[in-house]
């Protein structure tokens, strides 16, 4: 994709995402004129954003920690090394 094209998509995306329903459709209709590909690309990005509001919502480390916790619930006993880290943390907090 060419840089100008990407910049065009970016501008339209930020303007369109602030609008809803008919307003958005009308805006894109006017702004994209006969460039159907451009409109489709902007709508595709907006649809992606609106479809999933948890993607990347937490930092990677926190997600890994959650994955770990879930894994532990499924597996039972805590890992000895991790228990050590936990104890260390408690000691540090004193």
């Amino acid at each position, binding site marked *: 994709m060419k840089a100008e*094209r990407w910049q065009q998509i970016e501008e339209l995306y930020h303007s369109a995402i602030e609008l809803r329903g008919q307003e958005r459709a009308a805006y894109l209709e006017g702004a994209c004129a006969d460039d159907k590909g451009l409109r489709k690309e902007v709508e595709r990005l907006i649809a992606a954003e609106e479809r999933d*509001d948890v993607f990347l919502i937490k930092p990677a480390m926190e997600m*890994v920690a959650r994955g770990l916790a879930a894994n532990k619930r499924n597996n039972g006993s805590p890992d000895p090394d991790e228990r050590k880290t936990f104890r260390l943390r408690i000691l540090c907090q004193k």
Partner: protein
Amino acid sequence: MLGEHTRHTLQTSALVNEAYIRLIDWKGVRWQNRAHFFAMCAKLMRNILVDYARKHGYQKRGGNAIKLTLEDAAGVTVETNFDLVALDKALLELSNLDKRKASVIELRFFGGMSVEETAEVLKVSEDTVMRDWRLARAWLLAKMSGEPDEG
């Protein structure tokens, strides 16, 4: 028997250890400033986590995806699949298209940085970081869902 649990575990302590080893391995690096150091740390975290996901995988559950339970912005609990390896690949593509947006994702998601810190590292306004973040996130989602784009 020693399998499942050990395979899928990545302790924080092990992670810090790994980060330390890789960090002291960068003998040639001349740290320019604090921002440079944070940027490198985010890259390091990305490498470690993606390497881990690739090596130990979650293949048994389909692809490299990890199943996660998260709260959305409204506080509603949702289950989601998350694939670090696919994210890494998509992020590489994004960086060819728009390097700064890929950096925003790297710093915030892998580096755990705030909008303010990210703005400092990239020397842009916080507003730019927010806008970059939003579009980059949408682009990655579309990419990872396997939809064809304009090319």
